């Protein structure tokens, strides 16, 4: 995994609540047996009309907005556990997703793929939407080391939480498996010694 650096980018505002992973990547695209190419199908049914033509009203198709930060309504990533949702967001080019609330499994999946979920307050989220909509060139600065999010030319800044272990992984580009393997002796001991009924 790549090391996570401070991100300073324009952002795409997707002001919809409860965006489920079926919208992020519809089930019919889950037949692939590898991780590549899901970006093409990201938000497929929102990006396209039913007849297959481009839906120019959808913000991802708008020429006004671009960037590697997605700002979304509350409860982002609910529903299915499909990691394909995180793969699709990464493949499309997103490095950060900002929302006021994330579903558990999605949050874990994102972190395991170097995509940073940044949880902000409801007020800050509103403010972000407002700023980006006023000026689509507005840059958002996400500093993982300091755990801060800021808006260019604005004093308003927030801190965000992240599991310290996951933070270390992201900053250094580690993934879990290497670490997990170091504990195998403890696992084997646990299996033999503990009187376990399950």
């Amino acid at each position: 995994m790549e090391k996570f650096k401070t991100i300073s980018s324009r952002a795409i505002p997707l002001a919809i609540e409860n965006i489920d992973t079926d919208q992020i990547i519809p089930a019919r695209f889950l037949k692939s047996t590898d991780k590549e190419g899901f970006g093409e199908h990201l938000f497929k049914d929102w990006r396209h009309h039913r007849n297959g033509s481009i839906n120019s009203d959808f913000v991802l198709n708008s020429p006004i907005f671009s960037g590697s930060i997605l700002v979304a309504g509350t409860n982002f990533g609910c529903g299915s556990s499909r990691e394909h949702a995180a793969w699709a967001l990464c493949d499309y080019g997103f490095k950060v997703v900002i929302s006021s609330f994330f579903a558990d499994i999605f949050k874990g999946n994102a972190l395991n793929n170097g995509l940073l979920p940044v949880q902000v307050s409801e007020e800050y989220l509103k403010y972000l939407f407002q700023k980006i909509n006023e000026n689509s060139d507005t840059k958002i600065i996400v500093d993982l080391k300091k755990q801060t999010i800021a808006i260019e030319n604005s004093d308003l800044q927030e801190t965000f939480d992240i599991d310290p272990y996951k933070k270390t992984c992201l900053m250094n580009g580690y993934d879990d498996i290497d670490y997990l393997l170091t504990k195998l002796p403890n696992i084997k001991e646990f299996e033999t010694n503990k009187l376990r009924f399950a």
Partner: protein
Amino acid sequence: MKKTLFDKVWDAHVVESIENGPQVFYIDKHLIHEVTSPQAFNELEKRGIPILRPKQIVATADHNTPTIEQHLPIKDELSKKQLEQLSINCKKNNITLYELGHKYNGIIHVIAPELGITQPGMTMVCGDSHTSTHGAFGAIAFGIGTSQVAQVFASQYLLLTKPKKLRITVNGKLKAGVLSKDVILYIISKLGTNSGTGYFCEYAGTVFENMSMEGRMTVCNMSIEMGARGGMIAPDEKTFEYIKGREFAPQGKEFDQKVAYWKTLVTDEDALFDKEHYFDAADIEPMITYGTNPGMGIKISDYIPDIQNNSFKKSLNYMNLKAGESLINKPINYVFIGSCTNSRIEDFRVAADYVKGKQKADNVIAWLVPGSKKVESQIYEEGLNTIFENAGFTLRQPGCSACLAMNDDKIPQNEYCVSTSNRNFEGRQGQGARTILASPLVAAATAVAGRIVDISKSLN
């Protein structure tokens, strides 16, 4: 310290706690299927890491399988490839696979309990959010992503922070026609789709005590729809009786020993929860959803609320419904009885009981998709197939089917489907399809009437 059921099972599986970090959490059983496992197998193969405990893994093909002519080669090339990949991966790694056509094949969350694989006190994971189903037995069971599937393959544990604890208590007697599905739809409609996020939920109270194991599975299955990682119900005599004698259940003396342990898996009196909710069974009625998340539910005879919020409006717009509207008498052309929420024998018994001697409405296409080969055989053994066939219903072969429409079982664009599945998300049952979640009884009644009817009235 007083412990909850969740604490007892969780704490027994903590190998160690890392200072200022997560816990090393041991996994007893790992369930896999064709959609979320291939990338995990690839990952390990690429790095030359072996699967640590293949015997603790059980695999099935369910998401992508056809539900007709299962004996024939699969037509869809991509589906075929994905299923073949699962077979190759399982063979290579000595993993038990109940592939298409096997007598134990079916939806992973239906087969593991019915084969006695799911047991109280276990920790179970699967690359599937509805793994919460297995909590009905007093197991800690939850969905994981594919990276975590690879982690469990490699190490048989996960690095986790212990979730917070939530308890939902429902006491009293359920009204006639109110099923376990209505109970959980009611709870989610009251609490919202993210009320459980960060929590593991225990369901307690007389309503769950009196519920069958099938009903408990329906409830725990939908825990994820309020955001909870999982749901649990304390095991009791009903649980032990259900497990006894099943294929992979402990036998003889070992069974008795386990039961002695399983009996300790109850929440201590005065144990503390981070959050508690209480409901009265008398307030629950047959439920139905009108929107595009499972929290958007109402009593079947109620009116769609009016909420001034763009996401809410977008949702109603997708469903082509209006605030203030009633769903009663809404014409419906598709009915789906199936999915890991409601595809067990009890669900088909309820439906058959209602349908017996009646006819499906002409406008309706009604698909009945059993959760497993076993449920399918039971349907035939009990003669329910004749009831359904006489009524004009189509009985298909087991699989996830129209629950997520990965195979050909898709609801056409703009059509409504009254479905016993768990998700009414946009496009879940097919592009542009509009899903209305309900119990098997409401689904059966809809199929007969060709429109949504107030089931509570016709029962009284």
